[in-house]
């Protein structure tokens, strides 16, 4: 294992160190360095501290654990791998991600899972333990977004969730009575059969963060899917 004291490096040097490190790598005293492990595969990285924006951008198979909070654009355009955050994350997490998974113990900022997509066996997933900010799953084109709303008494998601959603699935641990969704969506109470599909993600969340699965499951869940994959088909006339 390689241990790096991140305090001594800016992001260029730090990423060079990580590229050259052994497969298992630990960063201590991380404080705001951006782009950590961008595009990496075949690494297992533990970060103690607070990584900067675009953590794991274009991630291609590496596994990242953050013992702390993460900032904006975690897992931007991520292709494969896993990011686990023992804290909160900032805005635009998992923008356009198409593979791998992101698990967050705490809350997510605005625009989590924007334009996530999927293709065949590559189905990305974001699981958020706390609540999510506004514009959750905007333009969602594929993949799975789960928000559990643990330890939050107020609303599980901010304003305008699922705007422009045209693929994938979203699962919110709430009856969503107070959440306003746009048109062209199917918003339903999740059935037991629906929940089977999400079981592996919720189980993994509980394993990672030591949450009580029974307690989590003992709640209403709402599943949101688009009811058209061609939302703009009727909008145009040929000229």
């Amino acid at each position: 294992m390689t241990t790096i004291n991140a305090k001594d490096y800016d992001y260029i040097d730090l990423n060079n160190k990580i590229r050259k490190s052994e497969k298992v790598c630990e960063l201590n005293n991380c404080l705001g360095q951006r782009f950590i492990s961008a595009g990496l595969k075949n690494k297992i990285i533990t970060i103690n501290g607070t990584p900067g924006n675009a953590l794991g951008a274009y991630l291609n198979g590496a596994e990242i654990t953050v013992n702390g909070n993460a900032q904006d654009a975690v897992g931007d355009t991520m292709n494969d791998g896993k990011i686990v955050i023992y804290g909160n994350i900032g805005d635009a997490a998992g923008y356009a991600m198409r593979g791998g998974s992101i698990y967050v113990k705490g809350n997510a900022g605005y625009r989590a899972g924007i334009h996530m997509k999927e293709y065949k066996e590559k189905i990305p997933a974001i699981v958020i333990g706390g609540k999510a900010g506004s514009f959750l799953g905007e333009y969602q084109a594929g993949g799975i977004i789960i928000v559990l709303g643990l330890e939050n008494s107020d609303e599980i998601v901010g304003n305008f969730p699922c705007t422009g959603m045209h693929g994938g699935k979203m699962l919110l641990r709430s009856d969503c009575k107070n959440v306003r969704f746009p048109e062209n969506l199917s918003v339903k109470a999740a059935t037991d059969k629906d929940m089977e599909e999400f079981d592996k993600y919720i189980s993994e969340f509980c394993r990672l963060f030591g949450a009580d699965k029974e307690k989590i499951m003992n709640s209403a869940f709402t599943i949101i899917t688009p009811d058209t994959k061609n939302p703009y088909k009727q909008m145009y006339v040929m000229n």
Partner: protein
Amino acid sequence: MGVEFIYPEFEVIRNTNRCITCRVCERQCANEVHIYDDENKVMLADESKCVNCQRCVSLCPTRALKIVKSDCRLRENANWTDGTIKEIYKQANSGGVLLSSMGNPNSFPVYWDKILINASQVTNPSIDPLREPMETKVFLGKKPSFIERDKKGNLKNNLTPQIELSMPVMFSAMSYGSISYNAHKSLAMAAENLGICYNTGEGGLHEDFYVYGKNTIVQVASGRFGVHEKYLNAGCAIEIKMGQGAKPGIGGHLPGTKIVGDVSRTRMIPEGTDAISPAPHHDIYSIEDLRQLVYSLKEATNYKKPIIVKVAAVHNIAAIASGIARSGADIIAIDGFRGGTGAAPTRIRDNVGIPIELALAACDKRLRDEGIRNNVSLVIGGSIRSSSDVVKAVALGADACYVATAALLALGCHLCRTCQTGKCNWGIATQNPELVKRLNPEIGSKRLINLMTAWKHEIKELMGGMGINSIETLRGNRLMLRGIGINEKELEILGISHAGE
């Protein structure tokens, strides 16, 4: 027929003395205009479906066909033109947003045609490119502002990655999906042969074309289709698409009907689903945010690829370019309002943005004034139609030009402007396998090579005439240009004198 009926725009004129009812026209027309009447043994036509792509005209073996504009016109009105009225009918019939393709066809000023090029007479002799060496090679990327030496006094290579081009022209972004596999292959093959670049557009890179990587610019747009680590490292540069000249400020929707087979695989989205590129990158709200995307791409490719930021030419473009130059981008690409498109809302295409000539002159001046011109290269596009347009652009300050419409014309496009239907009879803007195979990449690439080789020679002749023997000497050399028939303000923005001065 009724109030929603619009009389066909074109008429099919068939010379029955020449027609041998071979039915080539019928087989060639994906719009199903031509019909064979088995009973009377004659060819008929349903001109309401005709888009005037000229495919039948070109392939009729006896030259029996021509397509003409219909003379069934509404009463003439300089304010309410035929086109304007028919657009209203279409919208009243459908409630839809008008959708068009290819560049803005309206009669706005074309400044290239109002600029004249200098030539040497008596003093400063002209150069004959057939006899003397001429350099058309250019390198795109940030140029270092100082020389670095190590302790022993040896020169340190502090040059950041560059794109090397044999001539100041590249094929601009057209996605696989908006154009066909064979069109992409033609562009890739030609770019490799010519020592220039083509651009994947935002639809990802087909696995068969990774071999052309050295001559490929890979694009990252707001939809991030087909973007992954291998893709980012596949090309010689990465282009962040912020905007497009034909539709500044809006995103793109490739309809689900075009997301089939390989297109779906290359974009990495399911078949039949709309490919939606949102209007903005939702992680970019400022120059600082842009810088973040630029550097995340540099980190993901280990600083081995220059980053291009492409924007549409809009108001205040000079300030925008200055911001981009400070974001860490190596190259700025600016797309003028005449730039082509596979589909754009008509109103946006025809009314939004500014001419590339003015945008280029303004940006080059601004970057010079701020002392940051060498931090970036400037690539411009948006209707570069000929080698003289290229020469004028370089003299106005461009490092290179993007061409797309001219390249498509070389491949057989007849500018019928109906790419959005996906029924391109020339095998370019379609995913129908029967139509795609009409474009032979061997022939297509040869025609592109011919066109660019001819342009290269013309560029040398134009430069030679000015007594200039390299693109480097021509770049930003506005003394070589004069305006004709344009006003003081236009001359001021272009930074050139009037003819006769």
